[in-house]
C-alpha cells in the first residue's frame, strides 16, 4: 500500500469482443494515464464486465490492441497480470482460511510485504475479523476482503467491477479514501458503476455507445 508509481499509459484501440458467437461491443477506444480514473457506465448487459475482463487479459479480444506504454500487453500476459489488480463479481475468498490467511496467500503469490496486509485490513475495518474463517463472513464483509486484496498487492492498475455493491456507508467512504490515495500516488483505476460518485474527477466511458456499432459489424461479417 501507498506505493508510488512511475508515469505509465494504458490504452485500447478499436477493441471488439465476441461472447458466445455474438459481438458484445466493437470499435471501442480508451486511454488512461497514471493518476487518472475511468468509470465505465452503461445499462445492464452493455458489456462493462466484459470490457474489464478484457483489460485484465482474461477475456479474449476479437480484434484491436491493448497497450501498456505502447507495448502490446498480449505479448506478455503474466507481466500484465502482475501490474494490475482485479476485483470482479466473485470475491475469491477461501471459506476454510481466515481473513488474514486469505490475504497472506495473495501477498505470498505476489511477493508483497506482510505489513501491507495489516494496513489493508485496517483501511477496510477488517482488523477485528482477521482471524475469522472466510466461511462465516457476510456478503459485504467478504467483498471488503476482496477490496483489501486489491489495495494491498501493489499493482498500478486497479480494475473494479461494481465495487460499491453490498458495501455499507463506512466501507464506501473507506473505499473512496483508498481510491483517491491510489490516484494521488500515480495509480490508475478503471471501475464499472451504476451511478455512485466515488470519484468525481473520473472520466466516464459509456459502453452503450459501442453496442450499436457491434451489431452492425456483426451483420456485415455474416453477409
Amino acid at each position, binding site marked *: 500500500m501507498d506505493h508510488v508509481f512511475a508515469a505509465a499509459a494504458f490504452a485500447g484501440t478499436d477493441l471488439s469482443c465476441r*461472447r*458466445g*458467437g*455474438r459481438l458484445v461491443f466493437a470499435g471501442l477506444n480508451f486511454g488512461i494515464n497514471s493518476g487518472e480514473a475511468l468509470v465505465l457506465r452503461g445499462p445492464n448487459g452493455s458489456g462493462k464486465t466484459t470490457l474489464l475482463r478484457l483489460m485484465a487479459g482474461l477475456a479474449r479480444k476479437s480484434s484491436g490492441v491493448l497497450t501498456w506504454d505502447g507495448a502490446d500487453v498480449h505479448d506478455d500476459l503474466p507481466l500484465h497480470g502482475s501490474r494490475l489488480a482485479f476485483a470482479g463479481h466473485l470475491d475469491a475468498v477461501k471459506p476454510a482460511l481466515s481473513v488474514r490467511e486469505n490475504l497472506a496467500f495473495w501477498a505470498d503469490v505476489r511477493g508483497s510485504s506482510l505489513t501491507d496486509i495489516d494496513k489493508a485490513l485496517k483501511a477496510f475495518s477488517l482488523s477485528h475479523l482477521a482471524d475469522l474463517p472466510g466461511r462465516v463472513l457476510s456478503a459485504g464483509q467478504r467483498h471488503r476482503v476482496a477490496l483489501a486484496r486489491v489495495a494491498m498487492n501493489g499493482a498500478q492498475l486497479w480494475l473494479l467491477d461494481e465495487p460499491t455493491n453490498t458495501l455499507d456507508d463506512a466501507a464506501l467512504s473507506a473505499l473512496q479514501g483508498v481510491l483517491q490515495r491510489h490516484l494521488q500516488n500515480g495509480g490508475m483505476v478503471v471501475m464499472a458503476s451504476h451511478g455512485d460518485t466515488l470519484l468525481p474527477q473520473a472520466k466516464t466511458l459509456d459502453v452503450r455507445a459501442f453496442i450499436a456499432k457491434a*451489431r452492425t459489424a*456483426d*451483420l456485415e461479417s*455474416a453477409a
Partner: protein
Amino acid sequence: MHKFANPTFFMKIANAVFPWAAGLSVLCFIVGLPIALVTSPPDYQQGETVRIMYVHVPAAWMGSMVYAVMAASSAVYLIWRHTVAHIIARASAPIGAMFTGLCLVTGMLWGEPMWGTWWVWDARLTSMLILFFLYLGYIALGDAFEDQERGDRAAALLALVGSVNLPIVHFSVEWWNTLHQSSILSMQGFSISTEMVVPLLLMVGAFQFYYVAVLVIRLRAELLAAKIRTARFNLAATG
C-alpha cells in the same frame, strides 16, 4: 494458409472436391465389393469368413487415420486459431467413431467363428475400444459447455492429448502376444496374396473417398449451424 482459413474460400474448394470424392467412392464400392465378397479366393485357413476382412481392415485403418486428422487439425486450430481447422476436426469425429464402431462390430462378428467368442480383452481389441471411447469423449466434451467456443477449444486440446493412444492401438500386437492377427503391412510389403490385396486396396479407397465426401457434407452443416446460432442470438438479444 490464410486463404484456406477463410471459410468461404475453403468451402469453395470443398464443394469442388465433393463430386469427385463422392463419385470415386461409389466407383470403388461398385468395383471393389463384388470382388471382395464374391470373386476373391477364400482363405485356406479361414474359409469364407475371410471376406469380413475387406470391411474390417479398412474400417480399422480409417478409425486411426481419422483420429490422426482430427488431432492434426486440432493442433492447427489451437496454434493459429483457424476455425476451419476445428470445424474439420469436429465434423470428422462422428465419422471416425462410426469407422471405429464398424471395426469393432465386424471384428466381433469375425471373432465368433474364428476364436469362438465375441470378445476377448486382448490388447488390440481393448485399445481399439479405448479409441472408440476417445471419440465419444471428444464429442461429449465438445457438447458439454454452455459456451460453444469454450467446448471447441477444450475438445481440440483433448484430441491432441489423446493422440498418444494412436501408437498403442497400432503397436499393441507387437508389445503383447495376442490372439489378434499381426500386421499384414510390413517392411517387406504385403504378407497376403495379390488376389486379396487388390480388393482390399479398392475397399480402402472406397472408405477414404467416402470419408472425404461425408466430411464435406458435414462441414456445410456445421458452418450453417454456426451461422444460425449467431443469427438467432442476435435476434433474441436485440428483440
